[in-house]
């Protein structure tokens, strides 16, 4: 219920959490944009925040608190654990490396300085050691390359997973769009319903109960609503069976014994049908209305299976 577009009447129920979801959403949207209504809501929130005290106080069993704090302790422990193994493991030899290389080089220059002959043996030993170092380095390099390849592979896996997530996201977005379309359709249906009701409730609308024939089910009833000088008419029907296959209920208007097919009527499984149509001419120019059960394609004249009829 709106008051100058401010949902004054609904704000208290909103604060109590007592609105249906769609109306609650409308009020929430309004509050987000309207400081005065927001202040109004806040003032009620203070009252509502006191209501629980009216229920009294009761000590919950001790296990509730135990479980709560065990749950909290478990999550803080969980969040503390991953920190340790995340630190990269660095080989302790790393910083010593330049020294390790420097020693044989220095030894080799020393050997050269001392004289080639005397130094040959020494130099060969150094060369052997260098070769070993080189082999070790190659091995390390190989290991790094393997690791790199593995990382690339897991990189590919991550990319694949990312793609899957993106697909999922696209899917979710599509679903969201679908839901939005449904909401729009529902809103539209709601508006149609409102138009229906406002037509029937309008002061200038007159209504006429249609007479049943021997071919109508026992409790069948039909009523037409129309406005003098206007083409619109609304028909409400209760207690009718759904039409058998190949047949259809059809509404006819007649004047001077000339009947015009106005529209077909679908009866739902509860036996209820409603139809709103515009006749070709204003309603007060017709003198008869009837509803017949016709063959699907018979639109030139009504069948003999008349269910309802009335003079206008």
């Amino acid at each position: 219920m709106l008051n100058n577009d401010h949902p004054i009447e609904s704000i208290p129920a909103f604060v109590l959490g007592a609105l249906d979801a769609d109306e609650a959403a409308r009020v929430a949207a309004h509050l987000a944009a309207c400081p005065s209504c927001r202040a109004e809501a806040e003032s009620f929130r203070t009252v509502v925040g006191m209501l629980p005290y009216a229920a009294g106080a009761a000590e919950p069993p001790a296990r509730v608190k135990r479980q709560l704090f065990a749950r909290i302790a478990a999550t803080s422990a969980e969040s503390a654990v991953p920190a340790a193994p995340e630190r990269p493991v660095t080989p302790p030899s790393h910083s010593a490396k330049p020294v390790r290389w420097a020693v044989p080089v220095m030894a080799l220059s020393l050997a050269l300085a001392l004289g080639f002959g005397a130094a040959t043996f020494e130099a060969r030993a150094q060369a052997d050691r260098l070769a070993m170092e080189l082999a070790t380095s190659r091995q390390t390099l190989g290991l790094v390359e393997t690791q790199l390849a593995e990382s690339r592979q897991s990189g590919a896996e991550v990319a694949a997973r990312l793609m899957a997530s993106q697909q999922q996201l696209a899917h979710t977005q599509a679903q969201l769009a679908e839901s939005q379309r449904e909401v729009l359709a529902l809103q539209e249906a709601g508006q149609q319903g409102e138009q229906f009701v406002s037509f029937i409730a309008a002061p200038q609308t007159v209504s006429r109960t249609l007479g049943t024939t021997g071919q109508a089910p026992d409790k069948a009833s039909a009523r037409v609503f129309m406005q003098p000088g206007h083409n619109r008419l609304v028909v409400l029907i209760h207690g009718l069976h759904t039409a058998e296959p190949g047949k259809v209920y059809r509404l006819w208007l007649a004047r001077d014994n000339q009947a015009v097919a106005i529209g077909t009527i679908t009866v739902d499984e509860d036996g209820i049908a409603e139809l709103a149509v515009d006749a070709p001419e204003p309603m007060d120019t017709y003198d008869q209305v009837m509803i017949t059960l016709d063959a699907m394609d018979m639109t030139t004249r009504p069948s003999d299976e008349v269910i309802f009829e009335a003079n206008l």
Partner: protein
Amino acid sequence: MSRLSSPATGLSTAEDEALLARVARSDSNALEVLYERHARIVYATALRMLGNAELAEDIVQETFWRVWRRSGSFAAGRGQVAGWIFGIAHNLCIDELRRQRSRPMYAHGEQEQQALIEQTDDRGDVTSTAIERERRRVIVAALAQIPPEQREVLELAYFGGFSQSEIAQRLNSPVGTIKTRTRLALQKMRDLLHAQQMSAEDLHD
């Protein structure tokens, strides 16, 4: 608008905000103090709404779990911490009630509830603190002053967890009437609590 805090309760409100700020910094001791302060009210409310001790215990645990995880989302200076906590609990209870009512088996749940203002007997209530008893006295006194038909819709909405249209159906009245009663009830309660606060302040000046 007017924040409800008589001098006696004003201190506890400020303390609550300080505690919640500590909770936001992952101080579980502060959460424990908040629990000691408010769990009794949350539990009693959940018991009243759900009529089931086991469910009410779950509500208490989940409420304070959410206080722990969402302490940062409380806007300081906007309402009271207690009201915020009760709001979390109330929403959880409403969710549970709507879940129950949407089940095809749902038929019970219409536990006869004792009217709130008939529950004012505090004898034997050894668990509540002075602040709780004072707030209860204030709110029950205010409830007693609004017309019974307004009190009824207020109770059905807050403690029954019924929507306005559900209440309209139960009481066989138009939704518009129910909304008006709800509004009048809360407006009157607001005025009464405000007057109460004023007189409490006068008393202390």
